[in-house]
């Protein structure tokens, strides 16, 4: 796996009906893989904490100018990956480079900004003072007005930081991450502690920042954030990449549609077998009379269900949202991922 070419898109080849994110040799390389300068490159990176392996032989190439979501459940290795990219952690094996140099030198050259999880602000300063201080550390910072505007803090410049709300504090932390006008920004779960409205405004700011050609990498377990903001999503689970591609490719990869209906006395061995035998069905979940099927070919499934004269009611066919796709991906890791039919339950 480590011998794959450097533009390999995913660590684990994930055989799915959708070929958008299969091996790079199969399809034309995606734009981010062909750009000459890699914003971030992980080569065979392993990181352990004692007996716990946080990242396992991770391969990851992120091109400049993209907005990438690092998606995964708690403990997937997202924060570890970001710690490595910022030089806060050192890999046990493999190498991490950022903008073609070591993470530490990229940081001290002022080309990188970071917003860490749960990093507090010092007491006894105003927002403007703190922003100015961080600006002064970088060779070519944004102007104070720009920073405050970018982070939506223009009205809070004179506020003491200890008087800020949780969401406002997050905005200040974002302001500090971008104050030096870095080429590359890492955000570790940036919207924690924000309400829905603040969160939307925040992502508008991030999009604005990324629009100027900067690379933004953020970790999240909010799936809709990854879906809406990122142009590439890397799904981590147990320290490995389990999927990697555009949001639509990921959705397609998790395949198919969801067919829901109620079926009296569905929860019997015979009915279960009958449902499984329907064409296109990859997973069956039954809760009382409620049946949820995942199908690679919903039309065929529904047609066959009616043809078999199943007494079904309340039929509903929906596309998979990213959440479902994500759950399918992460619940599959560990097994060979070759057959979704191994799973009885969708949720």
């Amino acid at each position, binding site marked *: 796996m480590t011998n794959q070419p450097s533009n390999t898109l995913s660590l684990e080849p994930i055989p799915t009906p959708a070929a958008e994110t299969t091996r790079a040799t199969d399809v034309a390389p995606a734009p981010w893989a062909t750009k000459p300068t890699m914003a971030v490159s992980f080569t065979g990176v392993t990181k352990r904490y004692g007996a716990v392996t946080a990242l396992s032989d991770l391969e990851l190439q992120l091109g400049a100018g993209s907005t990438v979501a690092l998606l995964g459940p708690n403990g997937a290795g997202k924060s570890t990956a970001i*710690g490595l990219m*910022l*030089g*806060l*952690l*050192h890999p046990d094996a493999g190498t991490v480079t950022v903008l073609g140099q070591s993470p530490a030198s990229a*940081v*001290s*050259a*002022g080309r*990188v*900004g*970071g917003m*860490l*999880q*749960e*990093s*507090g*602000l*010092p*007491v*006894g*300063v105003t927002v403007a*003072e*703190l922003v*100015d*201080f*961080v600006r*002064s*550390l*970088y*060779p070519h910072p944004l102007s104070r007005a720009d920073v405050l505007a970018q982070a939506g803090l223009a009205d809070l410049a004179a506020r003491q930081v200890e008087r800020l709300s949780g969401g406002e504090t997050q905005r200040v*932390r974002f302001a*500090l991450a971008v104050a*030096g006008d870095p080429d590359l920004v*890492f955000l570790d779960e940036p919207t924690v502690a924000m309400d829905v409205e603040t969160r939307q405004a925040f992502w508008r700011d991030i999009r604005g920042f990324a629009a100027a050609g900067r690379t933004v990498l953020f970790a999240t377990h909010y799936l809709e954030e990854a879906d809406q903001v990122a142009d590439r999503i890397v799904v981590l689970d147990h320290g490995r990449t389990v999927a990697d591609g555009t949001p639509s490719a990921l959705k397609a990869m998790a395949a198919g549609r969801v067919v829901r209906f109620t079926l009296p006395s569905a929860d019997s061995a015979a009915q279960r077998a009958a449902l499984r035998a329907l064409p296109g069905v990859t997973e069956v979940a039954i809760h009382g009379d409620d049946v949820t099927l995942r199908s690679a070919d919903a039309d065929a499934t529904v047609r066959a269900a009616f043809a078999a004269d199943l007494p079904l009611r309340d039929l509903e066919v929906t596309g998979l949202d990213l959440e479902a796709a994500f759950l399918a991906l992460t619940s599959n890791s560990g097994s060979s991922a070759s057959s979704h039919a191994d799973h009885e339950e969708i949720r």
Partner: protein
Amino acid sequence: MIYVLSRAAGPTVRPFVALEIRRAVRNRRFLVFTVGFPLVLYLLYTTAGVATAGSADHDPIVGGMHFSAYFMVSMASFAAMSAAFTVGGIRLSMERASGWVRQLRVTPLPAAVYVVGKVLVALAIMLPALVLVAVAAVVANDVSLPLQTWIRLLVSIWLGSLPLVALAILLGYLFDVEAAQAAQMLLLFGLSIFGGLFVPVQSLPDALATIARMTPTYQLADLGWRAIVGQTPDLGGVCLLAAYTAVFGVLVAWRYRADERGR
């Protein structure tokens, strides 16, 4: 010395020190313990007769100088130690716990500037407290010293407080916020009492006086007292101060590296 240290630490040290001075000066603990407490205690002891109650002489000779000058050095030493704890100690522990130190490490600020900067800030913010005690001595007690003695006094207290600054920084690296709070109070007053800052060593029993001579606080103040009477610094005392600085400094470096490695 500030100049030398700041040159050595690179261009980012100035904004860091400026920010930290601003923060320290706004800290209520700074106003109370570093500026207010030594000044009030000095005035109480030397003008209200608290220390000399029952004695006919309002300004007795202690250690070869008037008590008003002697106790000025004592309180200046206390202010210096208190300034060190304002910068290190609880506050440093809080900054590590909150993740602010980690946040600084993802900026171009060289990690060492955080520590070197803290030392500079401690030296800088003790200055107003030292000046206030000195002004009180001059105005209230007619203490009069040649200019070079004042300068030697300031340099003595700056250099002599380095082990205390290192100790305060070490405290912030060793303890969580609550433990640092307790340790800080204990050290601030323990080192003052046992170091003879509140009661002159000359009036302590022999056993306690021996202990006092082992403390960095006594040796710090002794540098100042010797400046006033025009004696050369005590070699043993200077060595002790240097040894304390080295030991605390090495311990700080050790804890600091542990932080660097990512816990």
